[in-house]
């Protein structure tokens, strides 16, 4: 009773917001004390066989009740459990006198460590799948029975734990849970993929302190602002519920474009498109166009570096959807923390200030050329704007423009229609922001996450400097205001398309800095529109 309001920050692995009560899931790995007296090797072998059989049965049943993605993820675990290359060495250890539990645990831990140490983040995130099967078999080895009574009967629960495993996620009764917050996690692992596919709000890398919060206390899980509000007061709760209901109203179509604020300013709200499938659920009438299509993510689903035709068809489809509204497509922005590893071979992509964005494209002309050809051909079919990521100096824009001209010339010689699209740049580096007048471009987009990170000389991966990880720091805001003023004075559009734009906490500040265009994920569209109208009315 009388809990004090606290706010915990994490990283969003899936977007959305929900209100619920804490369900604190304790680690259920049993302690070694419960292990029964060691039996002879044959008995130990049988113990392990039975435990694996039971785990296989569990997973087989769970696959039947899971959707396609869930089933695929569990299929991997099932194959691992049935792989003699995994189990034979364990049985060999048992025959040498080791217990079933120790052999299983040691071997699985060895594999888990091996994946944790992998240089590729996507391979790292597979460690989780091994932890999942390790724990499931261990539970049977240690004869732990999970009683159904352990699961609470409440509704609207927020799952809070150190970590969550794929099979655990799939076993949860999702009619009773409305979100997850965990201490560990990775945006790349299978649980995060599942949460995104099912649109379940999911915060990862939360502070450990969330594990000692009181169960059943109300919380607001606000993934769009990457925070968990514990024991919110009535005012916070009411404000949240109001914005929730406003966004539902607008989802019902009551809010139409253009979005005019209470004091009469017109704000253009664009959408971010990462996956063309999201266009099925939204009409171009509901936005001003596409403010940011991250081309590297558009093809992520097919898992393959797309050829010119594939790219051309996708870009054309996007332009066709938008009609005469503008469509801004950003060229491949692989590198940094963006999960497109391997696409460009072995070049150093691990650093957020290294080989990424336009730097990577200009040094891989074969890949860039294909994309430029596809874009120039698609430009014939609509209002295409091409956005160049991670620009630092004006020569990068000039080199890009030159390549466009060359490819358009070639295409025309091949009797293919092509057009020069509008060319714009992401303002993400301090160098670009400071020298903004030196760039000959048609429009600007502010990548607020990277810009804030570079200005504050810190990144979200760095711990102990959280106090500097503030996108609303006056230094960041001053730079954004300067960009907005320069763009305004020179009649060029500037759009904010980072997380800042869909943060309803920061949006009013951005509007006050003179920002007139924002681009947000489709899921946040209604909420952001509601926030624009709502906030300005209260001024």
């Amino acid at each position, binding site marked *: 009773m009388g809990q004090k309001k606290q706010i915990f920050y994490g990283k969003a692995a899936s977007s959305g917001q929900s209100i619920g009560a804490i369900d604190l899931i304790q680690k259920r790995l049993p302690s070694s004390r419960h292990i029964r007296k060691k039996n002879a090797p044959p008995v130990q072998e049988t113990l392990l066989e039975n435990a694996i059989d039971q785990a296989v049965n569990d997973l087989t049943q769970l696959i039947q009740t899971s959707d396609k993605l869930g089933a*695929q993820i569990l*299929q*991997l675990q099932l*194959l*691992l459990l049935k*792989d*003699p*290359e*995994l189990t034979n060495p364990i049985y060999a250890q048992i025959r040498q006198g080791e217990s079933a539990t120790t052999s299983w645990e040691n071997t699985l831990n060895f*594999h888990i460590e*091996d994946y944790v140490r*992998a240089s*590729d983040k*996507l*391979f790292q995130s*597979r460690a989780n*799948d091994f932890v999942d099967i390790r724990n499931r078999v261990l539970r049977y080895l240690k004869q732990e029975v999970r009683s159904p009574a352990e699961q609470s009967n409440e509704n609207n629960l927020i799952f809070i734990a150190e970590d969550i495993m794929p099979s655990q996620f799939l076993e949860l009764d999702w009619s009773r849970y409305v979100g997850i917050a965990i201490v560990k996690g990775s945006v790349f692992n299978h649980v995060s993929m599942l949460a995104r596919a099912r649109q379940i709000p999911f915060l990862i890398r939360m502070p450990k302190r969330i594990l000692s919060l009181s169960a059943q206390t109300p919380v607001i899980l606000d993934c769009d602002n990457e925070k968990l509000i514990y024991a919110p007061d009535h005012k916070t709760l009411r404000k949240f519920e109001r914005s929730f209901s406003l966004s539902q109203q607008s989802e019902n179509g009551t809010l139409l474009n253009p979005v005019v604020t209470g004091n009469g300013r017109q704000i253009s709200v664009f959408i971010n498109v990462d996956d063309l499938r999201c266009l099925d659920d939204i009409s171009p009438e509901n936005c001003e166009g596409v403010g940011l299509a991250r081309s590297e993510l558009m*093809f*992520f689903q*097919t*898992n*393959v*570096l*797309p050829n010119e035709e*594939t790219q051309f068809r996708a870009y054309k489809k996007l332009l066709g959807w938008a009609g005469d509204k503008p469509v801004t497509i950003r060229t491949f922005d692989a590198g940094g923390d963006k999960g*497109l*590893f*391997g*696409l*460009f*071979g*072995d070049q150093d992509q691990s650093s957020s200030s290294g080989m990424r964005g336009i730097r990577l494209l200009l040094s891989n002309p074969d890949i860039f050329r294909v994309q430029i050809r596809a874009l120039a051909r698609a430009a014939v079919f609509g209002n295409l704007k091409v956005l160049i990521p991670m620009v630092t100096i004006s020569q990068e824009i000039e080199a890009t423009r030159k390549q466009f001209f060359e490819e358009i010339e070639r295409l025309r010689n091949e009797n293919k229609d092509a057009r020069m699209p509008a060319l714009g740049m992401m303002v993400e580096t301090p160098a670009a922001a400071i020298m903004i007048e030196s760039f000959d471009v048609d429009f600007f987009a502010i990548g607020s996450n990277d810009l804030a990170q570079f200005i504050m000389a810190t990144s979200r991966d760095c711990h102990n400097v959280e106090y500097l990880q503030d996108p609303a720091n006056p230094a960041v805001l001053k730079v954004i205001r300067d960009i907005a003023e320069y763009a305004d004075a020179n009649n060029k559009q500037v759009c904010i398309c980072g997380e800042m734009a869909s943060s309803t906490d920061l949006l009013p500040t951005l509007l006050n800095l003179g920002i007139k265009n924002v681009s947000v994920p489709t899921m946040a569209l209604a909420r952001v529109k509601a926030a624009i109208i709502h906030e300005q009315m209260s001024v």
Partner: protein
Amino acid sequence: MNFEDSVLIRHSLGLHARPSIKFTSLAKKFSSDIRIKKGDQSHWVNAKSIIKVMGLKIPSGKELQIQADGIDADNAVKSLIDLVLNNFDEE
């Protein structure tokens, strides 16, 4: 009968979970012993084992070498190469 060939992994995620599952399931359809290795390494592993194949952690752009020994070795290597060339049937 012994047969060997190599192919470049173009799948943007590399030889990851789903590609590895497809690769091992296809390999299991042949009676030959099939081994694979990462182009620049000397460590061969069983191509029918998911833990071994995924465990190679081959990223995109790396060469995969396939070797088969048995009655259907020729066909096995060709089919596995085709699977990789077709990007594991994912597009």
